């Protein structure tokens, strides 16, 4: 049982934790952008499922994981436009329409899978590992940092990119303005609906990409593949207090805890039932963190409020 505590295994576990964090990170960063603009999207789980199926099916038919990834991104974008129409134009209650999107994604992907694929057939994931050549020469740290596929680097690179976008650009300023005080933003000539639509499309595109990343990582599709990851991603936005770095910390927490539990189970250190208890840890920790931070940090003031000029 002491096998677990070798450097090799700990490194491998951390590396896989980083990979498992990628779907959380992509989905939660996207959701954070949307929420900063005042739009809550509870449909992340559904969009992730649709992105996952699109990526899986494309990769299965074409043999190209990269093409699959692209399809995940495209369907995410389409779902973003649909969600923007529902919430921004039609002013639908955001929490409920999100549940609708979730149910649609859950049923629709299951339907397509049963009709188009039937029996689960594995696909090969992304092969492009841009820094793989560095891993051989740099030992354990190298394995941890350089052994990932390009998608992992893109996901983590998006943390500073989104941070910069929200805090240092005009677009980001507008996003925050329509999320905090849409009436004031409107008075200053900012297109509230335009900015919100853009934020929603960014968020859903990233959710679709997150689903695609998950399908390619697991290499298979099945009913409810995401198994609640989209809902966790929404929770991570609150956990990270709407800040990209906080969101990243939460994603890594969930990723590394699940990879550690999985590794301990594979090594026979713990049984399946103990693994279930251990898997609760991030959720429990999230609740505790929220009790501590929630008094300090408020959510965007106009979150879930549709914008009308006469109100």
């Amino acid at each position, binding site marked *: 049982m002491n096998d677990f505590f070798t450097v090799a295994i700990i490194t491998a576990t951390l590396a896989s934790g980083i990979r498992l964090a990628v779907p959380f990170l992509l989905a939660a960063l996207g959701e954070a952008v949307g929420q900063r603009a005042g739009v809550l999207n509870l449909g992340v789980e*559904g969009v992730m499922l649709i992105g996952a199926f699109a990526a899986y099916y494309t990769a299965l038919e074409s043999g190209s994981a990269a093409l699959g990834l692209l399809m995940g991104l495209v369907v995410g974008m389409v779902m973003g436009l649909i969600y923007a129409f529902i919430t921004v134009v039609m002013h639908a209650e955001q929490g409920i329409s999100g549940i609708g999107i979730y149910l649609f994604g859950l049923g629709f992907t299951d339907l397509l899978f*049963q009709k188009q694929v039937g029996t689960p057939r594995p696909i090969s994931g992304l092969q492009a590992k841009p820094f793989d050549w560095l891993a051989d020469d740099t030992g354990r740290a190298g394995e941890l940092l350089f052994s990932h596929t390009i998608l992992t680097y893109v996901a983590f690179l998006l943390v500073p990119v989104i941070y910069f976008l929200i805090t240092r650009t005009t677009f980001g300023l507008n996003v925050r303005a329509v999320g905090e005080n849409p009436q004031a933003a409107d008075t200053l000539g900012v297109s509230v609906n335009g900015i919100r639509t853009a934020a929603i499309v960014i968020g859903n595109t990233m959710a679709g990409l997150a689903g695609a990343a998950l399908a390619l990582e697991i290499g298979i599709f099945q009913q409810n593949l995401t198994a609640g990851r989209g809902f966790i991603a929404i929770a991570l936005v609150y956990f990270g207090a709407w800040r990209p770095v906080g969101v990243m910390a939460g994603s890594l927490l969930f990723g590394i805890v699940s990879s550690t539990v999985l590794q301990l189970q594979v090594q026979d250190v713990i049984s399946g*039932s103990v693994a279930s208890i251990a898997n*609760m840890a991030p*959720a429990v920790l*999230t609740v505790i963190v929220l009790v501590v931070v929630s008094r300090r940090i408020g959510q965007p003031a106009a979150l879930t409020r549709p914008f009308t000029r006469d109100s």
Partner: protein
Amino acid sequence: MLKMTDNQQRFSSGLDIGRLLRPFAGLAVPAGAVIAALAVGAILLGVFGANPLTGYRELFTGAFGGPDELAATALKSIPLMLVGVGICIAFRTGVINIGGEGQIIMGAILATLVALALPDVPRPILVPLVMIAGGIGGGIWGAIPGALKAYSGVNEILSTIMMNIIAGFFMSFLLEDWLIEPGAIRIQQTKRLSHNADLPLLPGGTRLHLGIVVALIVAILGYLLLFRSSLGMRLRAVGHNPHASRAAGMKVELSITQALAFSGACAGIAGAVLVFGSESHRLIGEGGPLAFTQSAGFNGIVTALFGGLHPLFTVLSSYLFGGMLAGGISLQRAVQVPQALVIALNGVVVVFVVGSLKLRTRVQRWAEGDIQMEDRA
């Protein structure tokens, strides 16, 4: 309004048809949305090579075509009714409860534990006992995020989602270890629970059991609580305006905790019904939490909203949604389109109906003769 509009003048003499039709003008839009959603379903059926008309006929007859079908629909609707009534209570208090899934699971677990601990208690006592245990289990699981919101300001959307995850893993922990059926192949399920806890079948020769009566009783109690008690008045006041309620001397924090506790209790009873009304009479975790709850924690939100957040109308909308779930099975059998279509269709219905509410407000205003104001604006 001082000036009568054309619309009002037209109907002002004799029978006031306009007035009679007014409540239905608003209903026309959601009804249209449902029809539009069904049209999307027809297209999907067509894409998969099935005749949409045959498909829908099968869906309808599978749901409402005879006593057995009506009973199957009622069975599918029980968890939706129970969760939905709970959602009415929470949403009316201004608290969003996404935690139905976890509350169902915790109710099912506590009810199962009671049945395991007291297998020999006679049925007339044990059945109510396990239902109450379910209510307590779900109630506690609702009260925790309620108290966290009320006293620590933790967002309830987030905490109820987390409570779902914790409950799901807790169920698989119990079913992999303490509660697993002894000796058998290691499937995540308990042994067959006490016969004394089985929900008895209702007379009529169908598979319909006492669970439907439990659901109706809970719905009536929910209605009395919300609209005919001072506690319910306080809950609705807090939902309407927490600041004014506080100024009027109400304990807002307590109301929020109570609302989520009641809401969770209803879902917990649904969990107990899912265990003791199932054909296998055991708690099964195989296939994940979603397989056990049948997504009722989410679908119940949908039926409550369709029921206008009114417990009695929620019973009606739950029955209709139950019909879609039950009919989906015969749809699959008849035209070889997986019943997952029905879940997707449920989602489309929700999106179309909530998306059309703005339009509905406009139509309602038109029916009430406010259209001129609307035109000027």
